C-alpha cells in the first residue's frame, strides 16, 4: 500500500523531470518481472513499472499497450524493448529484453532436463493430465474476451472464419495466411474508416 503513494508523491516533487532509469535499474526491474510473472506477465509488469517504481503513470502504461499488442511477440517483451529504448537507447533495450528472459530461460531449460528424466513417470503423467485442461480453458477464455471486443459486422466474422478454416482445418502455413488475410483486413478497415 505504501509503494503507490511514494511513487505518486515523488512525481509531484519533480514535475516533468523524473530521473531516467539507469541500465542497471532496467536490468533489475525486468529481471524481477520475468521471475514473478506467474499466470500472465502483464499484471506483474504493470505493478512493477507503475506502482512500485513509478516510471510510468497508469495512463502512460495504458497508452503503451496498443503498440505492444500490435507488434509481434509477447506484449511484455515489446514493453521491455520500447521502454529500454526510450530510457537508454539500443543498450537499454538489449539489457531489458535480456533481463526479462534470463530467469525464464534457465527455468525452462531446467524443466527440459526434468522432463527428459521424469517425464514418463506415473505421477508426472497425472500432473500433466491436470495441467492440460487448465491451459486449454485459458486459451478458450482469451478467445471469448477478444471476440466480444471485435468491431461488429460481416467483415469481422468472415475474417475470423477464413483464418480458422485456412489454419486449423486446411493447415496452410501461417506465413501465407497472414500475407493474404492481413492486408485484406487492413484494406477493409481503411475503407470503413474512409466511409465514416
Amino acid at each position, binding site marked *: 500500500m505504501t509503494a503507490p503513494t511514494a511513487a505518486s508523491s515523488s512525481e509531484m516533487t519533480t514535475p516533468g523531470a523524473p530521473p531516467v532509469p539507469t541500465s542497471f535499474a532496467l536490468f533489475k526491474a525486468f529481471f524481477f518481472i*520475468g521471475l514473478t510473472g506467474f499466470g500472465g506477465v502483464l499484471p506483474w509488469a504493470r505493478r512493477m513499472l507503475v506502482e512500485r517504481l513509478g516510471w510510468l503513470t497508469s495512463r502512460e502504461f495504458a497508452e503503451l499497450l496498443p503498440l505492444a499488442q500490435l507488434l509481434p511477440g509477447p506484449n511484455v517483451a515489446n514493453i521491455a524493448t520500447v521502454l529500454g529504448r526510450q530510457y537508454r537507447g539500443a543498450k537499454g533495450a538489449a539489457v531489458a529484453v535480456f533481463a526479462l528472459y534470463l530467469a525464464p530461460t534457465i527455468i525452462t*531449460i531446467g524443466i527440459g532436463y526434468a522432463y527428459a528424466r521424469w517425464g514418463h513417470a506415473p505421477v508426472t503423467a497425472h*500432473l500433466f493430465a491436470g495441467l492440460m485442461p487448465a*491451459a486449454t480453458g*485459458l486459451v478458450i477464455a482469451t478467445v471469448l474476451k*477478444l471476440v466480444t471486443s471485435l468491431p461488429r459486422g460481416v467483415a469481422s466474422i468472415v475474417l475470423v472464419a477464413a*483464418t480458422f478454416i485456412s489454419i486449423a482445418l486446411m493447415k496452410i502455413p501461417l506465413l501465407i495466411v497472414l500475407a493474404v488475410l492481413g492486408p485484406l483486413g487492413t484494406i477493409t478497415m481503411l475503407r470503413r474508416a474512409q466511409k465514416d
Partner: protein
Amino acid sequence: MWSTLADLFVHGSIWSLLAVGGMNATLADIQRYAVDTRHWVTGEQFVTFFSITQAAPGPNGMAVALIGFQAAGLSGALVSTIAKILPSSLMAYFVSAWVERRQDSRIVAAVRKGLAPVTVGLLVSAAYVFARETDVNVSRALCTLVCAAVAYRSKLNPIYLVAASALLGLAGVFG
C-alpha cells in the same frame, strides 16, 4: 544436427515475427510444423509443454524452448529461445521509434483493426488444436469448460486455476 538447429532458428524467427497479438496466435502453426511435419514432439507433448510453461514464470511462448530441447537438446533449446526473442524485439525497437516520430497513426490504427479478426481466428485455431488433444474424456472436457468460464467471467489470477486443475490431475481424476 546443424540442419535441425537451422530449421529451429528459421521457423522460430518466423513465429516470432508472425505472433500478431501475442505468442498464442502462432500455436496452431507451431503444432502443424513441429508435430505433423517434423515429428519433433507428439501432439500430446506439444500441449503438455505449453501447459507446463504456462504454469512457470515468464512471457508466453517459452514452450518453443522445450520443443527445441526435444528436437536437439540444450543447443536446440537455446537456439529456439533466441529465435523467439530476437526478430520480434528488433522489430519492436525500430517500429516503435518510427511510430513515435509520426503522430498521424491512421495506418497503424487500420492495421491494428484489420489484424484483430485474424488474431481471433488464430486463437480459435489454437483453442481447437488444444481441445482436440486435451479433451479425450468427459472429466477433462468438464474441467476445460469450468476453467474457461471462470477465467472469462472473473478476474482471478489464472495461476489458481492451473494449480487447482493440476491437483485434480494428481488425484487421478483425469485418468
